[in-house]
């Protein structure tokens, strides 16, 4: 009897520890949301924990009225849509080529692939020089072209394609369809779950990127939302610029005082909200795939 009671005590402590961990994960997001919805002057008094004290949407209004921030939002959306579409399409097409074991270039391509996986890339300076030589430096292409193929995605998609029933493609082949047609008409539509998984992953990657803006562009009109947020967070010039922008807005008739910090919080909420929205879907796909993937790739 006594032993069982000890177990119960362990269960309670364990549950409390887990709740505490989950709280530290979730709470900062709640805090940021509360600050972004609170009046900026009032926030400086401190003590905003869960709910805004003086509710206002002013910080979000500033984002909509600041041209550089609107532009950054467009850049982020643009790179997410174009980049994701290219990654999904090209990576799955490459994965499809890799399913033909009787393809003449199968073996050499396999070696090239693994060499690229283990030795590919090579530091930001050589990459910078390469981008400069091929002329994509400080160009929108630098966001989408280097990521059109993700070698890890290729492996994942290929694993899925390999388990599709081979009869489908064979019968289409007998009917005279070529590989290109089979890919578009049969393989791609039949692989909706894996395509969804890759799409979500690629979209999160594009949405969250900011390093490429820092390394390979001069900023300007190519700044993404994440990059602008980083600038406001770290660089005092950016903060000053934003303050000037707000002064101008205030002169135009917006009365409430808004400071760069609350705008920063509002941008944080804006860049996190879409991830929270697709989160249930990410979860659904991850649960199934990750277990299987881990077994295949690591174990």
């Amino acid at each position: 009897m006594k032993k069982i009671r000890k177990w119960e005590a362990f269960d309670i402590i364990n549950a409390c520890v887990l709740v505490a961990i989950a709280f530290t994960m979730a709470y900062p997001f709640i805090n940021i949301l509360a600050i972004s919805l609170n009046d900026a002057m009032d926030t400086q008094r401190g003590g905003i924990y869960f709910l805004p004290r003086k509710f206002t949407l002013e910080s979000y209004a500033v984002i909509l009225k600041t041209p550089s921030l609107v532009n950054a939002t467009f850049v982020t959306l643009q790179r997410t849509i174009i980049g994701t579409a290219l990654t999904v399409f090209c990576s799955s097409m490459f994965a499809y080529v890799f399913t033909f074991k009787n393809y003449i270039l199968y073996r050499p391509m396999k070696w090239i692939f693994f060499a690229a996986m283990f030795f590919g890339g090579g530091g930001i300076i050589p990459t910078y020089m390469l981008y400069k030589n091929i002329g994509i430096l400080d160009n929108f292409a630098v966001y989408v072209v280097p990521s059109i193929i993700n070698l890890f995605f290729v492996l994942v998609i290929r694993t899925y394609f390999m388990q599709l029933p081979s009869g489908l493609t064979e019968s289409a082949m007998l009917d005279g369809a070529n590989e290109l047609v089979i890919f578009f008409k049969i393989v791609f539509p039949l692989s909706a779950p894996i395509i969804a998984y890759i799409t979500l992953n690629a979209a999160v990657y594009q949405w969250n990127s900011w390093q490429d803006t820092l390394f390979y562009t001069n900023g300007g009109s190519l700044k993404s939302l994440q990059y602008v947020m980083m600038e406001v967070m770290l660089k005092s010039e950016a903060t000053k610029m934003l303050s000037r922008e707000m002064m101008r807005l205030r002169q135009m008739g917006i009365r409430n005082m808004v400071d760069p910090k609350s705008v920063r919080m509002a941008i944080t909420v804006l860049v996190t909200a879409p991830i929270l929205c697709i989160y249930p879907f990410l979860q659904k796909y991850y649960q199934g795939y990750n277990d299987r993937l881990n077994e295949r790739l690591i174990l």
Partner: protein
Amino acid sequence: MQSTAAANRKSKLSYKFYKQRYLLIMSVPFLVWIFIFCFGPISGWLMAFQDFNPNKGIFGSPWVGLKHFIALFSSKQILLVMRNTVVISVLGILTGNICPLVFALSLNEVKNAPFKRTIQTISYLPHFVSFVVVANIFLTVFSVDGVFNTVMINLGLISNPTQVWADKNSFWGMITFVNVWKEIGWNSIIYLAAIASIDMEQYEAATIDGCGRFSRMWYITIPSILPMAMILWILSMGDIFNAGFDASYLLGNPVTRETSEVIDTYVFRIGIENGMFSFSTAVTLFKIFAGFIMVFITNSIAKKHTEHSLW
């Protein structure tokens, strides 16, 4: 005879090429992409052995042999950067492997499925947001008027607000905490999957033999997931010179630079911001090869003393 056989083989090969022309068409763009974007930067490594001048290019710049590598090993600053990198990444490897394991073991003891799923779902959330958001969160929570200081003052633990991010002595601890916070839930998935694949009969037999909860954990769960933990550990040793650009760049500042500067941020600062292309390439090259060597060393140690290794 022989020539016809050769011709036959040749026509067979060209027939095969013809038959697979669509596959060939499909592979060309990808091969081009791989050669440019994966192997292209490798040719840039030559810059490490030159006094590279962007106007003259790789072919026009003078060769200087190992000058930059000698400069690298005699530089005091590099030693400091190297120390920070190794300390931050070793702390990261230790906590990044142990914390998720403990978290997974703890989650595994929860019997209530919806509770377990909720905790898990919340715990991977930080993995999906960018490091900019994470840095923003931690800079805000630990700022002078942030929640951390307010709570600490209200509890009477400190009398004046502390500037956590301006203290170079606490940087390593803070950055380790941030990294654990971000990845603990995500990294625990692989351990949970491994635990789920353990045969339940082992537990039943152990229970009949009178094993309690902790001895089952100690004698069954941990030994069963150890091989995988070992492989993850070997793989992570390759990252020992890779302390991560994001964390140091976003959370470090000039005040904490003495402890926050790591190889990646140093290369960025001297390479792109100051234009010392050759020297920073030499640093990168050193980092890449040191990483390879570390994986080999850990793998051979693991092979010698345990049964688990990568190859």
